[in-house]
């Protein structure tokens, strides 16, 4: 029972998405009425025309010609109405689906990053592609069948009532019986549809992961194993797909069977009442005709039940995504950030990715404006987490982070983030030209600006050698760029932005040290008097920082300049010396 409610709710939400296209829907409805009425008129006109051809030498050609002309006009207008109905329904379904997809995509940008990090991307892609498409198909088929069906039902109902109210009522009461049967079957199979939709998502995730990492699969000769696991998921998809298709396609024949029973009952009881003298033969035969006509739309509607069901299953997954909580909204009156010096105070911050395992507790740090902070420590000590918190990719669970005395939670996220230029170890490029990729943070930059940023990042010469120079299209997984070159492009991106503060998280890890030195120099020039954070393992990067933070297990265990730390002879000294430790 509860599930049923959920479903109604889902349908209402889908319709809400269609509501901006109310006008098209109304037009579709109007044309549906006109279409059905004219379609029902055509046989009547033909019938009259034939009636005028009585026998040899007894044909009223004038009347026939007139009636046939009327038929022709009705046929043409009927065709036009049907066409227009189709057009409007098309528009409604495709644009509704576009809006749903667009909302899903926006949702990717408004959920907390935790959601994106925690869900297989292939599954999310399947929701935006396949589940949304199923909703569209359901809408298209559903509206088409529903509209012409409803009109057909109403029209025949009118004819029947005119003919005989009593039997009309009987037919009206018993025909929906078939709907109960259909509803029962539908409920049985809905579960399979949900499973099918989810498995479809699973298969996308699998493809996304294994095809995306094809090189590794090859390197380890893992083709057979990956094929096996794929076939296992695929087999599960086959089973639930086959079940859902079969069960839900039962609805139509069952409905027709029930309606056949209804016709039989009408026929037999009608015949009996004729024998008992209640009806005439003509009435009963007309009645059977109309009863047939009346049940037909029900049969047609149940014919599209599989599409409707997979639409519902898709919609459930789409709405589940759309309903997941957004990140906290930006403050209503965000702090004004036009004046910033770059002082950062981190006060008693605690954080954990999962409540069971606190990662950072009691974290305190005060950064003077314009200083260069380096963060070092064993991997997994919380360096990247620190940056996640500073940029508000994740929110602290306790304490506060302030920039120039203003809590970052009083700022708009975008304002906060635009204070920082950030380069991560994993260099993200997207499917666009080199120029667009470099100008990502400053889309209105001129080509000269882009070039000068590329020069500062020492990637200009390489770009010039690419087939179309700055107009070369690069792809997310572009094969002919080395990791280092990708990092350089990301660095050029930040160089172009000239940000008030800088975060480099292992930003030069794949770049050769000679280039790295030059880039550091460029960064030093750019960041003169500005605050910057650098996470790096390489000594050269860290040595000349104003403050080096040594982190371990989510705490700062030592801090100070390189010389201060070296004289302490503590953890840092060990770390520093370890690179010279003889490895022979």
């Amino acid at each position, binding site marked *: 029972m509860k599930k049923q409610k959920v479903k109604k709710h889902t349908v209402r939400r889908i319709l809400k998405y269609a509501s901006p296209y109310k006008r098209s829907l109304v037009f579709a409805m109007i044309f549906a009425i006109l279409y059905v009425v004219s379609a029902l008129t055509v046989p009547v006109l033909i019938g009259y025309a034939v009636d005028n051809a009585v026998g040899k030498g007894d044909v009223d050609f004038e009347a026939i010609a007139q009636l046939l002309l009327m038929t022709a006009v009705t046929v043409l207008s009927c065709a036009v109405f049907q066409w227009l109905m189709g057009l409007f329904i098309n528009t409604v379904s495709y644009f509704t689906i576009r809006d749903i997809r667009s909302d899903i995509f926006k949702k990717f940008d408004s959920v907390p990053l935790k959601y994106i990090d*925690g869900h297989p991307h292939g599954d999310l892609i399947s929701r935006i592609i396949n589940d949304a498409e199923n909703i569209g198909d359901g809408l298209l088929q559903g509206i088409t069948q529903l509209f012409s069906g409803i009109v057909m039902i109403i029209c025949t109902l009118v004819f029947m009532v005119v003919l005989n109210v009593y039997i009309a009522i009987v037919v009206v009461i018993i025909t929906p019986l078939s709907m109960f049967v259909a509803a029962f079957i539908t409920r049985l199979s809905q579960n399979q549809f949900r499973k099918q939709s989810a498995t479809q998502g699973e298969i996308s995730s699998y493809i996304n992961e294994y095809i995306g990492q094809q090189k590794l699969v090859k390197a380890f000769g893992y083709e057979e194993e990956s094929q096996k696991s794929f076939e296992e998921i695929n087999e599960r998809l086959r089973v639930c797909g086959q079940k859902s298709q079969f069960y839900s396609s039962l609805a139509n024949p069952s409905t027709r069977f029930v309606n056949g029973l209804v016709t039989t009952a009408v026929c037999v009881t009608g015949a009996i009442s004729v*024998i008992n003298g209640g009806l005439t033969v003509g009435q009963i035969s007309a009645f059977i005709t109309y009863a047939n006509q009346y049940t037909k739309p029900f049969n047609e509607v149940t014919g599209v039940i599989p599409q409707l069901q997979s639409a519902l299953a898709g919609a459930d997954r789409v709405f589940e995504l759309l309903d997941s909580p957004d990140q906290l909204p930006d403050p209503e009156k965000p702090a004004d950030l036009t004046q910033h010096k770059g002082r950062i105070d981190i006060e008693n911050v605690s954080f954990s990715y999962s409540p069971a395992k606190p990662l950072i507790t009691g974290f305190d740090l005060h950064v003077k404006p314009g200083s260069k902070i380096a963060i070092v420590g064993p991997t*997994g000590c919380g360096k990247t987490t620190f940056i996640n918190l500073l940029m508000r990719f994740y929110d602290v669970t306790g304490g506060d982070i302030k920039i120039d005395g203003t809590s970052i939670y009083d700022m708009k996220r975008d304002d906060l983030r635009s204070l920082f230029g950030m380069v991560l170890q994993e260099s993200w490029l997207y499917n666009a030209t080199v120029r667009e990729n470099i100008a990502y943070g400053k889309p209105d930059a001129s080509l000269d600006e882009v070039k000068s940023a590329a020069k500062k990042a020492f990637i200009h010469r390489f770009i010039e050698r690419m087939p179309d120079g700055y107009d070369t299209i690069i792809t997310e997984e572009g094969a002919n760029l080395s990791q280092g070159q990708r990092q350089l492009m990301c660095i050029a991106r930040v160089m172009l*932005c000239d940000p008030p503060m800088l975060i480099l998280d292992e930003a030069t890890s794949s770049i050769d040290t*000679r280039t790295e030195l030059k880039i550091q120099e460029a960064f030093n020039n750019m960041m003169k008097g500005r605050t910057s954070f650098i996470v790096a393992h390489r000594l050269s990067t860290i040595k000349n920082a104003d403050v080096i933070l040594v982190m371990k297990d989510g705490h700062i265990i030592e801090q100070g300049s390189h010389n201060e730390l070296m004289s302490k002879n503590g953890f840092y000294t060990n770390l520093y010396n370890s690179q010279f430790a003889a490895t022979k």
Partner: protein
Amino acid sequence: MFRLRRFLKDYKLQLIIGPICKLIEAVFELFIPLITADIIDNGVRNNDMDYVLQRGGLMVLLGALGLGFALVCQKSASIASQGFGTKVRNALFRHINTLSHSELDRIGTPSLITRMTNDINRLQLAVAMLIRLVIRAPFLVIGALIMAMTIDLRLSLIFFGAALLIALVLFFVMTRSVPFYKSIQRSLDSVSLISRENLSGNRVIRAFARQENDEARFDERNSTLAKTAVRAGRLSALLNPLTFVIAQAAIIGIVWFGSLFVDGGSLTTGQIIALVNYMTQILLAMIVVSNLVVIFTNASASAARVNEVFDTKPSVTEKPDAFAKEDKNAPCIEFRNVSFGYSGSGHALKNISFTVDRNTTVGIIGGTGSGKSTLVNLIPRFYDASEGEVFVDGADVRDYPFASLRGKIGIVPQKAELFSGTIKDNMLWGKKDASDEDIETALKISQSYEFVSKLPEKTGKMLSAGGKNLSGGQRQRLTIARALVGRPEILILDDSASALDFATDAALRKALREETNGMTVIMVSQRVGTVRYADRIIVLDGGELAGIGTHNELFKNCEVYREICLSQLKAEEVENK
């Protein structure tokens, strides 16, 4: 589209039984009006109550039988269509597994995802519809045509004319809409592409506060998709009305000429009515056919996309009778005048020759984009050299079966990626039957043992896709462990310590040195510290070999190497003691 029929061959039974059952059901359905007429004509007229009930019983029986046949048909349709889709997907995945990186990069993962899911779904639908509808409609049409001919040969000409016209309309709409459906699927690809980019680059997008721009980019393609779909829909929406008009025109013609014949005495009114009814029957059948046509045009566009993947031939292929004559006395690895270029750009490697002796450690160093990764990618044959030869154990790598070549090599790629599953699952990649001890040793060498044993689930820890729930350094160490589990003959580390702090890096190198007896190790690195104690160091510069030798030799003789050293170390730190 018909090329894909090979995937249906296991479903011959369903393909035959399904339509036949559907046909029988249709025939039963045709009996119902006859019986109703019978009840009225014989039962009611004769006041025969028993006859009425008996015929009524017959109707119920036929209905039940019809239901039974329909069920068999639906079952066959669901089995054949889903089975077909599953087979296509399996075969496609298998084929994709044979493709080399350059082909995959050209088609793109997002497009492969849509092809594997959305396109194959469309094909499945087509198969199901084929079984349910394909025999019934032509049966009804041909039946009606024959009946029309027996009634009046002259008027049946109108039937043939109408049938021909309808066929033309179907053909016209079908051919015109195929390009639309192709472009719909392409738009769907690009929607999928941007979604994937957005998900993988979500941090960067937010960092640059570019969400709105990204959404605009998405909306643009999304709208293109919707508009193309509407345009394709506009064409398909023509099908039903046009069919309707042609059929009704034929009916008008039948009535008109029929009246003439009635006037002349060669036809009765009843016959006209019968002809009109047959034409209506044809119309109904043709409407079913036109819906089928839409589904099939759609499917043929999808079939073309699926076939395009099947037609993509891997650029790196195994020889049919691959057999490598290994020579354990030959150098472990040898490059002979190797040049290589990625498609569309110049040489990434130029005329490289060197040898690597067994059980030695070789460092590869060079500037960004100097070809280090490209060079090591040629050893396991991710790409084939465009000129020259690469030898492993004295045999050309192209003579090896992939499995035995790649089985010798453990590779740690630059990008530290793991797969969803437990840590142990990931370790088994290196050796399918690795024991817990094998795994423990590998974890210890790669310096991962400490953090793994601190995890509450130990090696049972579930990793998310790519291993994203670990830190970069942890991930990197596990990728090293994965390569070590199988104790490969050749270990390739492609700058795979970049995310490690120097203490861990140093400990790792020490462990590698002590524990990799019998392994030939190739280390690509940016750090002089990593390669300086290697037996030999290969220096690359702009795709060319700038020097080979030991650290001290190269520091003396190789300008490029000296520069690299001096950028990282103080002069007094340079000399190896």
